[in-house]
């Protein structure tokens, strides 16, 4: 789960979701699969919105299920939710979206996808009015969740 926006809301939401998922696993002996997690998260955002206490965050949720493979969902602070092959949030995202539109293929390998990310980030660091130095990269697959090398200015100077 990658969350941006209001910091307090982001932390609170992220902890709320993960702790509820752990509780579910302890209570029932099995985990919720990705579509159910997304549904639950969207519902949480929606309920807070409708009760006059909106959770001001945009997020990307990635999950891997053994029977259906990997999936990416984009949610936002208005509790909209869509399953997508690639997604962006934020100003840096707007810059990157064209690159992703151009370079994305459903057959990208992990290393190729990392390279596409690098191209996006190089553009962000060149063109965005804000200085975003470090980008954390994680990958979700059947091997679990792994952290890939951080992308920052050094990545491009090598």
């Amino acid at each position, binding site marked *: 789960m990658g969350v941006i926006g209001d910091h307090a809301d982001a932390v609170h939401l992220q902890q709320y979701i993960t702790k509820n998922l752990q509780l579910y696993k302890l209570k029932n002996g*099995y985990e919720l699969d990705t579509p*159910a997690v997304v*549904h639950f998260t969207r*519902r949480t955002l929606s309920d807070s919105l409708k009760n006059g206490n909106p959770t001001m965050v945009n997020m990307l949720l990635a999950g891997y299920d053994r029977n259906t493979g990997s999936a990416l969902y984009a949610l936002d602070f208005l509790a909209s939710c869509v399953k997508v092959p690639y997604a962006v949030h934020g100003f840096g995202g707007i810059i990157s979206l064209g690159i992703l539109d151009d370079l994305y293929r459903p057959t990208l390998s992990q290393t190729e996808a990392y390279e596409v990310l690098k191209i996006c980030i190089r553009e962000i660091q060149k063109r965005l009015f804000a200085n975003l130095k470090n980008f954390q990269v994680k990958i979700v697959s059947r091997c679990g969740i792994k952290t890939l090398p951080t992308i920052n200015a050094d990545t491009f100077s090598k």
Partner: protein
Amino acid sequence: MARRYDTRTTIFSPEGRLYQVEYAMEAISHAGTSLGILATDGILLAAERRNTNKLLDEVFFSEKIYKLNDDMVCSVAGITSDANVLTNELRLIAQRYLLQYGESIPCEQLVSWLCDVKQAYTQYGGKRPFGVSILYMGWDKHYGYQLYQSDPSGNYGGWKATCIGNNSAAAVSSLKQEYKENETTLAEAQALAIKVLSKTLDMTKLTPEKVEMATLTRKDNKTIIRILTNTEVEKLIAEFEKTEAEAEAAKKQPAKS
């Protein structure tokens, strides 16, 4: 002596028993039988229909078998009005889960949730427990076909074959002998259900009006819930009577020679 401790549900007797809960189970043992059998390719619930008065207007298709959601069905034994409240609650619980997670509630979670509600009535509130035992049959992606039974105390268990209501003890011991785990198909289970029901029904002959049967199977990734028609039940009863007659004839043969 015991009488002093059973007017309030929420207290123990000196011997450590909850009398109201036990009395509730006693009420159920006088109610119409319900039995469930887990087969390799599906599950079935069969129930004795007691309201066979010809003057009854047929409002509901089924007297004792209720659909809870797309993947689960239950059958009840006990006080019908209590059963209505509980089945309504079960449907609400299932829909609340669907609303929150976007998928069907796993069977055990539904049973467990309702049993927590039932248990509350044995501990606080001062209200009497529900006089209903429930048999649940359902399918979920975690454990496949499942059969559960719950009672007024709020206890529940998973079963391969079980029975509640009138003469249930006799039925369970009969099932214990005849049921073959991992080898009983749905068709064999249907025949077995008719056989056991004919024993539990007080002396009267089995007719299609007295029996309700429902099956749950999976096809093409969808759950199919069917309540058997009168004709299908009649056919099963006819086959049962045929096998019984043959068995009787076979018994008489050695005596002759």
